């Protein structure tokens, strides 16, 4: 047995590790190296410039503007998405009034669950295109709905006061469905007798959610938090498709800044790599912080 163990382990481990090394690690390392050059992307000429790109980045207002927007996304998208996800999941799993009140979902749970999951099935680009039409100032769903109320809607994506928030709303909308399903599944795993005991003690729905459900779901919420935080630091596809960072850079995000610096209006691959490296460390720190901040004692069902 011992004789045959290592070949087997190696046979299983080496191919994925090699693939990971070639397609994940090596591009990362190269990006680090490129970020210290002035490479312009279309010739083999690149001079090492040390940390110049990073120094320049510190003084680049456009980058800071993009980071500010990502910070707002980071502050709001996870909170809103998780709050809405928890609310909907609660309603779907224990919001009904019939029978043993509080432990069944509202009527039509199955249909809601399906509908909430729809955005998750669509590709992000499709979502962006659909919402671009919804936000159409003259022919869009949103302003058409406001018109009978006597409100002349704003031009949404065309107004720097609203464009960014419109994208943020779509980001939340696109993510909520997945977390409704995720939280719903986790809620199903909570033993029913806990709820029955809580109900006997006379707890209302809100208290039940706050004191019982969320603590028992904490592991899942934590995972959701990290995923959403990483998503909030990206946001590239939605922004690029819906506003291209405009108007006047009001909805710019750091991913788009990097893309435009390399592939868009510039070909500064060295500088873009520096932005990428900064993004890498930002995302890493946020993930670590989110893990730390949300660490709590594990509750296990016995």
């Amino acid at each position: 047995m011992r004789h045959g163990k290592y070949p087997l382990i190696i046979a299983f481990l080496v191919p994925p590790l090699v693939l990971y090394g070639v397609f994940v690690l090596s591009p990362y390392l190269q990006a680090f190296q490129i970020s210290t050059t002035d490479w312009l992307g279309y010739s083999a000429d690149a001079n090492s410039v040390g940390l110049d790109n990073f120094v320049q980045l510190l003084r680049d207002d456009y980058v800071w503007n993009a980071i500010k927007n990502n910070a707002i996304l980071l502050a709001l998208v996870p909170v809103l998405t998780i709050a809405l996800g928890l609310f909907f999941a609660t309603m779907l799993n224990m919001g009904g009034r019939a029978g043993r009140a509080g432990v069944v979902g509202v009527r039509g749970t199955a249909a809601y669950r399906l509908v909430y999951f729809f955005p998750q099935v669509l590709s992000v680009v499709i979502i962006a295109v659909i919402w671009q039409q919804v936000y159409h100032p003259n022919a869009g769903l949103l302003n058409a709905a406001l018109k009978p109320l006597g409100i002349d809607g704003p031009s949404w994506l065309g107004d720097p006061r609203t464009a960014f928030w419109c994208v943020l709303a779509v980001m939340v909308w696109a993510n909520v469905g997945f977390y409704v399903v995720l939280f719903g599944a986790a809620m199903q795993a909570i033993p029913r007798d806990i709820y029955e005991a809580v109900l006997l003690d006379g707890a209302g729905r809100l208290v039940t959610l706050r004191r019982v459900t969320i603590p028992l779901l904490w592991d899942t919420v934590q995972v959701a938090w990290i995923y959403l935080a990483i998503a909030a630091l990206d946001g590239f596809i939605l922004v690029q498709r819906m506003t291209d960072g405009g108007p006047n850079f009001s909805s710019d995000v750091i991913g788009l800044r990097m893309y435009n610096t390399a592939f868009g209006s510039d070909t500064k691959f060295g500088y873009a790599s520096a932005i990428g490296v900064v993004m890498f460390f930002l995302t890493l720190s946020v993930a670590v912080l989110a893990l730390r901040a949300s660490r709590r004692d594990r509750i296990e069902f016995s």
Partner: protein
Amino acid sequence: MATPAAGLLTGCAMGGDDDSGDDSAGRGEKTAENPFGVKADAPLEVVIFNGGYGEEYAKAHEAMYSEKYPNAKITHSSTQEISKTLQPRFVDGSPPDVVNNSGAGQIDPGALVSQGALADLGELLDAPSLDVPGKKVRETLLPGVVEVGSYDGRFHVLNISYTAYGIWYSTKLFADRGWEYPRTWDDHIALCRTIKAAGIAPWTYAGKHPRYMSWPVISTAVKLGGLDVAKNIDNLEPNAWTSDAMRTAADAWHQIVKDQFILPGTPGLDHVQSQTEWCRGKAALISCGSWIENEQKAVTPAGFDMAIAPTPSLGAGDKLPFEAIRGTAGEPFIVPAKAKNVAGGLEYFRTVLSMRGAKDFTQKVSALSVVAGAAEGATLPPGLTTVVKALDASGANGFNWVYNNYYRKLERELVDAACGEFFSGRIGPADFLAQCQKGADMIAQDSSLKKYKRA
């Protein structure tokens, strides 16, 4: 197992040392028939941008090349993502021989030139035309074609389609209502009032790409102040954007914002959405280039009869007449400096610029060729017919600017953002020009960008 992986890990996206750019090895003997010394059996690789013009026209050009060099194997491919598809090949020194560097995924031409990635096409201009007897290729081209493809005096980019930029309107709408396209600014404002009173928005524009509106502003300024206005902008001269002519032009255009002549909601529309509102008759005037007719084909109502017109004259003091219009060559083609068959690439361009190649292009894609006279005898759609007329009337008064080719970011990001603020009414003309100037200064101070001088 370890060796190839290590090779890959240390291998760099930036490529290795490059060989010299001398392509004499790939050339045969130069003769009168074969001025570039094309090797008859040298393969030719052509990459076409598959956009508004499709790729059929290019296949026809390739077939013509094959007639002359039947033993040359031609590899044709097309993509909508030129930059992403070809960047690795530029870096490792094995680019195709001919590239149609166009579309949203276009590679910044200024960057390509500054990195020495493009072959000098000067030879092409001095070679005899394939089928226009007694003329060099240079002499068969419309004015401005050489200039717009030249960087510091070297011709690097061949643009094969001639484009006019102006104001578009529906002749049917105007005829039905008894309106006439205005020749002066005052008439323009008066007409806008009439149009607005009729319940139609006088103007709309590509709200998400507001640089479309920088074209009429700069055109107005050039017509007022002369060609130097544009040249100073191209050369990043200090305060080029805040010159007197630009100020007067921006003040004038501010009127359509102040008087709310722009279709409400326009800032939220992209170019196709705004052009569609225009086609639906919600707005009367729009700024665009001559590609608009192709782009709007699917939604243009029958009998709409779109027409192009120059920007209205500001007054009697204008240096250029009303008829002067911005005409320039578009749809760029390049031969990479490290292409294996540079001579073949040049010969391919000579085929494209032959009268036969140009006429075929005009017929197939309903666009004007850069070869003078190629549109004669062709049946053109209504919009393009007006473009031909407008370019004729403009003649030697035609003008152009090229800063958008030299410094892509300046137009695409910086002037774009300033136009958005200006035409949605959030800033006035002085702030608008100051913001453009700030962008130009930023480019001028960026030592990592090569600066070009327009002669």
